[in-house]
Each structure stands twice: as C-alpha cells, then as structure tokens.
C-alpha cells in the first residue's frame, strides 16, 4: 500500500460515450425549460385576474413571424448538414437565412410591443396581464437574442472561412439550442395567443 496501485489494462469492447457538448446542452435545456414552465404557470395562474387595464383580447396573433421562427429551425438544421458534408458556402447561406428569419421574428416582437405600449397603453406595470405577458414573451425574446448573437458570430466565422467540418459537433450544439428556442415558442404561442386569448 506504499505505492499507488496500478489498475491493469484489459482489452474490453469498444468504449464509446456520448458527446459532452450534446449532454451539456441537454442539461441546460432541461434547466431552461423549468424556468419557462414557472413563467408559463404564472401566466396561466393570473389569466383573467387583472383588476384593471387591457386584457389578452387586444393581442394579435403573430402568424407570419411565428412561421419565420419555426422555419429557421429547418434552416439551421440544413446548415449543420451542409457543414457535415463539407459544403461551406451552403453552410454560410443557411446560417444567414437562419439569422434573417430570427431577426424578422424579433422585429415582429418589437413591433408588437410598440403597438401594445403606445396604442393600447399596456406596460409591465399596468396590470397582471402586462406583468405576465411581457415577462414571458420577453424571456423568450431574450433567448432569441442570445441565439441570434451566437448564430451571427458563427456566420461571421463561416464567411471568413474559420468554420470547418471539425466544428460540426459545436454547430450541432448551437442548433440544439435554437431548436429549443423554437420549441418554447410553440408552447408560448399556444398559451398566450391561442388558449389565453
């Protein structure tokens, strides 16, 4: 026991473990989902409990921008496939499309908020609807912003030729995050614009 024991090497079956990037992102997504669930619960709990001020009926369904966001899931997927196949120009193109679609969504949210604030007089302080609406949609929008920053950086790397096939795994992790942002929007869209209105 005076020297460290050496575990002898034995030949075993091939030892393959999942990629840590994917696992890490899956964990992060789980944690983020829990945060969103709490905000959604708060939204549903306070639905119809506002004492004064505008109600969810003033909302307009953002169909076009939602379609843009949902299709950006497809484009980021194509970007990953293109990078995997080594087609770098296609990668840049698909990434640019993703950034554009995400940007349109964000612009749509900005326009919606502008209308709500200046036309309908709804701010986060107005009532419980304002409180829960802005915080839930804003939480999602902040995730879109983070995703767009990451995607834009990737696009820059791609355009300057720094993004190569060996980065496929990393781009896949980023695309996972973006899929998550889209999936959250499915839920938020359903809760806020379909059920809650």
């Amino acid at each position, binding site marked *: *026991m*005076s*020297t*460290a*024991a*050496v*575990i*002898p*090497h*034995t030949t*075993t079956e091939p*030892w393959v*473990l*999942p*990629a*840590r990037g994917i*696992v*890490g992102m899956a*964990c*992060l997504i*789980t*944690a*983020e*989902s*829990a*945060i969103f*669930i*709490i*905000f959604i619960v*708060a939204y549903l*709990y*306070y639905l119809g*409990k*506002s*004492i004064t001020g505008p109600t969810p009926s003033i909302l307009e369904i953002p169909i076009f921008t939602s379609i843009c966001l949902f299709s950006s899931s497809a484009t980021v997927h194509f970007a990953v496939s293109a990078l995997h196949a080594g087609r770098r120009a296609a990668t840049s193109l698909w990434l640019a499309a993703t950034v554009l679609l995400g940007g349109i969504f964000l612009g749509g949210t900005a326009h919606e908020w502008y209308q709500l604030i200046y036309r309908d007089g709804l701010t*986060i*302080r107005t*009532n*419980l609807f*304002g*409180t*829960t609406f*802005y*915080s839930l949609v804003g*939480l999602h929008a902040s995730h879109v912003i983070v995703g767009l920053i990451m995607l834009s950086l990737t696009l820059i790397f791609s355009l300057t030729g720094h993004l190569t096939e060996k980065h496929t795994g990393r781009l896949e992790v980023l695309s996972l995050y973006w899929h998550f942002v889209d999936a959250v929007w499915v839920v938020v869209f359903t809760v806020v614009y379909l059920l809650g209105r």
Partner: protein
Amino acid sequence: MATQATPNLSQPAGSEHTAPRRIWVEVLHDWVTTVDHKKIGLMYIGYALVFLVIAGFEALLMRVQLSLPNNHFVSPQVFNQLFTMHGTTMVFFVGMPILFGFGNYLIPLMIGARDMAFPRLNAFSFWISAFGGLLLYFSYLGASGLSGAGSAPDVGWWAYAPLTARAFSPGHSTDYWTLAILLSGIGTIGTAVNIVATTICMRCPGMKLNRMPLLVWLYLVMSCLVFVTISPLTAAQIMLMLDRYLGSHFFDTQAGGSAVLWMHFFWIFGHPEVYVLVLPAFGFANEIIPVFSRKAIFGYPAMVAASVGIGFISLSVWAHHMFTVGMTSGANTFFTLATMAISVPTGIKIFNWLATLWGGKIHFTASMMFAIGFLFQFLIAGLTGIMLSVAPFDWQLGGSYFVVAHFHYVLVGAILFMLFSAFYYWFPKMSGRMLSEKLGKWHFWLFLIGFHVTFDLMHIPGLEGMPRRIYTYEADRGWMMWNMAISCGAVIQTVATLLFVYNMIWSYFKGPVAGPDPWDAWTLEWSTTSPPPQYNFAETPTVESRRPLWDLKHPLDPDSHYE
C-alpha cells in the same frame, strides 16, 4: 479564516522561487486561474468552511439572545437579519458549495477521468457562486450605507411575499439577497451541468453506469434535481426583481398578485433542495460505510433505484411546507400521501446500510463514527419528518421550533455529520496526510453531545407552542429552561468545531503521511497518489466491476464474478 483554510489544503508552494513575495503572487495566480477540478474542489470546500464559521457564529449570537426570555442582547432588527443570513448562508453558501467541492474533487477521480467535462465552466461556476456569497455579506456595508448599523436582508431565508415588496422592504437589503441567490443559482446550475456531462461522457473504459460508485450515482441524481429545482427559484427571483425594479405585480397583493404563488414557487425549489443537499451525504455514506465494515454495499441496484425514486418523489411534496396556508382538504391529503411515500425509498437506504454492516468487521475510525452518528440521527430526522407529513400534526408543529429541530436534525445530524465523516475519510487523499484520529474522536464525542443537547431539546419548545423566528419570548410560557440548555449545547458544538479546524491545520503539517490507500479501500481514487498528480492517473484505468481495487487485491475472487 479565509487566508488559513485555502493554503492549508493546498499543495505546498514550489520551493524553486526564492523571493517570498513572488511565490505568494504566483500561488495566488495559480489558484485564481486554475481550471483543475481538484483545486476548484478545494476552493469550494475552503470557501464553504469560511461561510460555515460565519453562519455558525450568527447561530451562536441568536442562541445567546434566546437563552433568556425578554433578553436585550440584540435588537429585533438585528435578530431578524441574523436568522435570514444564517439560513441563506448555510443553504446556499455552505451546503451547496461544500458538497460541490467534494463532488468536483472526487467524481473525476472515481470514474477514472482526467478532469471534469467542462473545466472552464467549472471555474466560472465556482467564481460566480463565490461572488454571490460576497455580495450577500456586502449588504452589511452596502445596503443602507456605512452610516447606519448596516442593513442585511431580514426577510427570512424563504422571503415570503409580500414582505419582500418595496412597501415592506424599502432600501436594498432584499435586492442583495435576491441577487446573491440568483448568482449562486447560476453557478449551481453550471456545476450541475458539468457533473452530469462528466458522469455521462468521461467515464473510463469499462465503467458502465451499473459499475459507477454509488457516490457518483448520487451526485448524478442530485445534479438532475438541480435543473428542476434551482431553475424555478431563479425564475421566481427574476419575477421578484421585476416587481422591485420595473413595478410588475407578480407578488404584489395590492394589485391582485398572489402571496401564495411565491410560496409554491419557493417550495418547488425548497423541498427538493433538501434532497439536493442530502443525496451527496448518502453518497458519502455509500462509500464510507462499506469500507469500514469491510463489505460490499448491500443491494447496489436497490440503492440506485431508491436514489432515483427519492429524486422523483421529492418533486411532488413541496406543498407540505404549506399545510397551514389554507389549501383544500384534497390538496392537504395528496401532499400528506406524497410526503409519506418518500419515506419508503429512504427506508430502503437505511435498511441497506444496516445490511451492509451486518456480518462485517466494523472498524470504529473517526470517519466511521461520524457515519454511524449519521445513521442514528437520520433515522430520527426521518421519523420526525413523518410526524410533520401528517397534515393535522403539522397544523400544530409547522412553523414552530419542532420544525427547526427537525430540519437541523437533517442538516446537522445527517448532512454535517456525514461531511465530517467525509473529511476524515478523504482528507488523506486531498492533503497526503492523515487527520489525527485522537483529536477526531474528541471532535466526534464533543460534537455528538453538543448536537443532542441542542437539537433533541429543541423539539420540546416547539411542542409547547414556541414559534420560530421570534427574537424573544414571554417568561410565563415555560420555554426558558429548554432554551438555556439549547444555547449551552450550541457552545459545546462550537468548541468541537474549533477542535476540528485545529485538527485540520495541525494534521496538514504534522499528520502521519497517508500513502495512496490508507483505508484499504476499493474505488479508483485510492489507486493514485495522495494528493493525486495534476493529471490524476498516469494511465487511464480500465475497470471490470464496481470495486476495481478489490479485484486487484483479491485476484482469485474478484467482484466481477458476482455482478
């Protein structure tokens, strides 16, 4: 303490430098910029120990105040700050970091890995958590300026709305509390991501999931729990910040907001948090009890299943903290059942430890004595937990000193005892020196006596109607004798803890050299030197069973034949 604990646990500084100032700067630079899981683990532990001393001192001040009725040792404002800071510190800046410290140190070593999956995320998580702790204590200086007596948060560690609203908590003390917890939450989630990714992606060849040491399993379950418990807390803290800074109305009862919603959000975090803290302690017990009984753990698959089961059930019991808020009889019944149900997997664990001891050869080292103390006290804590799960009983006992006694039985009697046990067990691995067994046994007996004087007696004022969080009490209630005794117990515990600190410092310099495997143990961390080199293992190990070193020591009768 801050300057003692960290270098005390560190490796000796390189001797090739002669100018002492330069060494000091280099050592500091080395520690601040490190991404090595062992150093980060030690920093987590050192930082938690500093806060343990601070929060323990706060407890002592409270006990002085409560030792006599209508005492004027501290003002009500100061007392309210003391219990808020004591609770917040112990949960977020002692319990979590010390357990993450051990996890950080041990998990890669136990699964034969070079480091954690994301070393830089690891360093980030540590520093952001550490910053959260400093921010919390900065409130003593910053919240209302240096001019006043300082204004630490005084809303209690669960900070029920609307006490946290601007109307009832002006100034910035609550903001410090919220921000500190937000930051520590981010660090916690980061480290939990790291632990899960490490256990899933970094295991050495042959280390299948069903061969992982139980400690690693427990940390895996604990980290998964963190995702679904710390996140709701983070979300609720964001809402609170929105309320306080942007004027939203989540918890603003004047504008139709709900105080009960905060309670739900808080306890969805708060109860599983208890399991986040206790699961690693189970993990320590799963490693230490077998080694000192000289037997394999009894019922490994059942232990894993029970841990996962506890994780799942713990998500459905939160509202047993809310039996008195006026839920319907149906809801009260449901949460009673869910809470009682958790005693089944917990019971399985206790019985399996019992069966591990059965037929063994039990060595009463200081580490094992603390582990046995843990077994007895966890049994009692579980039983008082069953009493509190009985909703009508809880209508009487909830919010009383009985509850305070109950959860201190869990946090001190179970978790802290198991942490002390872990210190005696792994200190040799971390420092290369044994802790003094003689001092260790003094520490054990003194702490045991102090613990039981304090926390056994603390149940009684609760039964006699003494609510928690009162800075003083009436003389005619008959609580004085108990409170005086409880305070005396606290002093004994303090002495024992100081003895432990002394033991660590003394043993670090003068303790017997440990060697790689002082306990004749079986898991991978004992197959490398003490302390392990930066790269952990000269060669990536390969394992064929749950106890690779047992296989090595008993080549004719290896574990792999039985699994």
